[in-house]
């Protein structure tokens, strides 16, 4: 093996001596996959692939700001402020908190921020390299606590998309003095030696679990970011391969305080079996909060017969959203017609008259098998002896590419609905599913719209023609529709430099939504919910719809898990 040599092996972290005793009621136990997506011992956010923030590393590294999605506001963190300094969104000034310190006692300064940003600009293996390349002109430290960013072009969403951490996106700040000292900072795994600004230290990490202890001198308390955290120890227990039943039962047994998100039925049963456990919506369905990842049935709009809008509409008409709600979600209204999550600001957009008018015109949520059949017949299809659509002697291949771990319930149901409408549908949960989407070999795929959180732009931008590479080559970041329409692109280009609240933006976006529905670019199917169980036996003050607290989402594994964990309070149970 040529290039990879010289990388330090990933390794377990063993405590130096005996672990200090921390009673259960000061310990937070989380059921999650450890070393599922990473190599063990990798704490350096620059080691990719290999690093993930999801296994507790989010308690080590902090961003400039968090975003409180349910309040729609920024939460200053390492930065006290972060403002565009020009009206056309071409420059931005960041002011850091003076108390912010790394775990080795060194202060967090603008040098660290500049290093972090420049690293993204220079190193192509880092995740925001392209964003920085496209937008950022220069980054300069004006003084120890002030950084100025200059953009090549208007970047109204750069602050939100890149510099702020919410859900699983955003940029953590890394210590310049440690990274720069490494021979190759993208290859130094970090272990427990890397200085970090977050409140916890890793004391043990092996394939069973990862143990993190509160450090006494976290800057956030002094800076007023948070009261002294009550959780003295966080144990992330590996449940990666365990069946859902077992995880659920361990929650019921108060072994876990929280865990991965669950299917609707399971969490309902958990709540029934242990009254201490609550969900985001208390004990009521749908138990979860809205994730940023609504799922659609995507189509390759360039691949026959999906290039025929009548066929796409026929597929849309075959989907019975009420049945989906009934079968999969116990009647909770999860099915959707929008390609974005209905967070407060986006809900407002969806409720606007312009959008409503478009929806009434194109009826995107309609279920009508007869009309579907009519469209198919128009498109030249006939039903064969098996009752499946067929043209020129070839049966319509409607295999849905999907991911077993997240679409295990919905995809088979969708396939069956299509089947009942005469489409020869099947599900491919193979590990090649994603590749098939990227390559555009397949026509149908189940996938999310990981885009819009605040305004609909990013969601619509997924379908911009400039991303629609020809079939056979990679389609870019999850833009699988290969949809190309100049009218649509023109609208997007017009609203791109505008702020979200600009009425012109709202108007353009509504028009684009109309085209989205008219052309059935893809078929939105469900909103995505995070149904996370929270156990009040040892810890209270979990986030919920009635206790929005800091306003971030409630997943402890997301970037915003840190504010969730530091605000937990003990119940005093033994």
């Amino acid at each position, binding site marked *: 093996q040529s290039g990879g040599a010289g990388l330090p092996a990933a*390794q377990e972290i063993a405590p130096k001596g005996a672990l200090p005793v921390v009673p259960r009621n000061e310990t937070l136990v989380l059921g999650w996959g450890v070393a599922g997506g990473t190599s063990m011992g990798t704490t350096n956010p620059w080691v990719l692939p290999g690093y993930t923030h999801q296994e507790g590393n989010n308690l080590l590294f902090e961003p400039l700001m968090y975003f409180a999605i349910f309040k729609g506001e920024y939460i200053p963190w390492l930065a006290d402020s972060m403002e565009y300094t020009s009206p056309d969104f071409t420059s931005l000034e960041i002011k850091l908190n003076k108390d912010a310190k790394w775990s080795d006692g060194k202060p967090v300064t603008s040098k660290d921020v500049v290093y972090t940003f420049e690293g993204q600009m220079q190193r192509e293996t880092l995740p925001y390299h392209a*964003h920085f390349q496209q937008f950022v002109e220069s980054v300069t430290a004006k003084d120890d606590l002030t950084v100025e960013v200059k953009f090549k072009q208007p970047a109204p969403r750069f602050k939100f998309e890149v510099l702020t951490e919410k859900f699983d996106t955003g940029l953590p700040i890394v210590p310049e003095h440690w990274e720069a000292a490494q021979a190759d900072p993208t290859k130094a795994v970090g272990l427990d030696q890397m200085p970090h600004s977050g409140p916890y230290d890793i004391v043990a990490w092996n394939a069973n679990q990862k143990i993190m202890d509160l450090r006494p001198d976290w800057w956030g308390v002094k800076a007023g970011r948070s009261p002294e955290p009550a959780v003295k120890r966080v144990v992330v227990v590996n449940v990666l391969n365990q069946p859902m039943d077992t995880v659920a039962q361990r929650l019921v047994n108060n072994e876990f305080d929280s865990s991965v998100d669950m299917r609707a039925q399971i969490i309902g049963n958990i709540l029934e079996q242990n009254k201490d456990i609550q969900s985001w919506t208390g004990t009521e369905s749908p138990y979860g909060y809205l994730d940023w990842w609504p799922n659609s049935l995507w189509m390759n709009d360039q691949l026959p017969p999906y290039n025929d809008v009548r066929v796409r509409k026929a597929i849309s008409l075959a989907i019975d959203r009420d049945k989906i709600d009934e079968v999969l979600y116990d009647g909770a209204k999860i099915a959707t017609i929008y390609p974005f999550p209905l967070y407060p600001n986006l809900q407002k957009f969806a409720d606007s008259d312009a959008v409503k008018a478009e929806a009434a015109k194109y009826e995107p949520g309609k279920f009508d098998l007869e009309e579907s059949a009519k469209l198919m017949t128009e498109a030249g299809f006939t039903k064969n002896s098996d009752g499946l659509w067929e043209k020129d002697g070839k049966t319509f291949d409607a295999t849905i590419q999907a991911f077993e771990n997240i679409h295990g319930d919905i995809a088979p149901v969708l396939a069956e609905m299509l089947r009942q409408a005469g489409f020869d549908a099947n599900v491919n949960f193979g590990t090649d599913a994603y590749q098939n989407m990227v390559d555009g070999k397949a026509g149908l795929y189940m996938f999310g719209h990981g885009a819009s959180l605040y305004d609909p732009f990013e969601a619509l931008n997924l379908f911009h023609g400039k991303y629609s590479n020809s079939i056979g080559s990679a389609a870019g970041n999850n833009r699988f529709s290969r949809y190309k329409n100049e009218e649509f692109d023109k609208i997007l280009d017009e609203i791109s430099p505008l702020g979200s609240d600009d009425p012109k933006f709202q108007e353009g976006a509504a028009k684009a939504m109309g085209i989205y529905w008219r052309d059935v670019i893809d078929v939105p199917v469900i909103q995505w919910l995070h149904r996370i169980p929270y156990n009040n036996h040892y810890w209270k003050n979990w986030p919920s719809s009635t206790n929005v607290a800091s306003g971030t989402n409630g997943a402890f594994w997301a970037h915003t898990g840190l504010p969730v964990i530091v605000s937990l309070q003990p119940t005093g149970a033994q």
Partner: protein
Amino acid sequence: MTFKLVIRRLVFLVLVIWAASTIVFFIPRLSSRNALRERFGELARTGGFSPEDLEKIIANMNQQFGLDQPLLTQYWHYLGNIVRLDFGYSLYRYPSTVSDLIAQSLPWTIGLLLVTTILSFVIGNLLGAISAWPRAPGWLRGFATPFILLTGVPPVIMGILLLFFIGFRLKWLPLGGAYSVGVVPTWTWVFFFDLMRHQILPALALIFGSVGGWVLSMRGMGITIQGEDYVNFAEHKGLTAGRIFRDYYVRNAMLPQVTGFALALGTVVTSAIIVEGLFGLPGIGTMLNLAIRSNDFPTIYGIVLFITIAVAVLMTVVEFILPLLDPRIRHS
């Protein structure tokens, strides 16, 4: 045993390993799938990866993994690496190497599999021997029958059932993990017992799952042996039943089973893939299961190859041990 024989066995061992590595090398290359691309695609899926760079990164990694070279060169390199037990990097846990992953998980698996394999070997053979032993009391022979039926219960199903009844319903034993939450491995009795408590259910699943096979094959052997003249003559000699059973009957019937022992290891590991996962044990089976689920090809191939080598080595060891047990082989 002659020196020549030793050499012959070792050459054979090398051939087995070569064949296994060649199969493992070429099979995935027969299909058009590209593990690296798939892996990065998945990374991109979780968001945060810059789209335009995907191809560049993939090309970069292809080079790093040597995938851009001609197939034969790759094959040659690959064989060279195998010799050094270097199975390359894990895709999913890059930059961990597959050898690292194996080294991390092996102790768990060895602990569990070795104990269960030996136990089921002993129990199974004993029961099998008894069930074919006409002088054993009827109730004792009947005791073996349910175990024969157990042959039909794959360890997976056994694991699921045990977990459900003993873990969920009766709450007698922990539901998973190698040891209790928040505990760090230490060399103490407390830790040891904690560890054991967690291993009971997976061990039972594996034992129950494989004991039947041993019962069955030993029974077949036993029936053959108990008709042998020397067993009859031993009885004519007025030996006690226990001695006949041990020295004349079991000892001879065991011989072919010993070879089976090495082979069984391969099967048991396969069972462990699911059983370990079911009980959240961080062994090699879990590692393989994860690798299968996450399409971590280098890890899959590395582990499969490693297990094959282990089985082949064990078989070679058995070939060397057999002459100690069977003088007929020793002298020929």
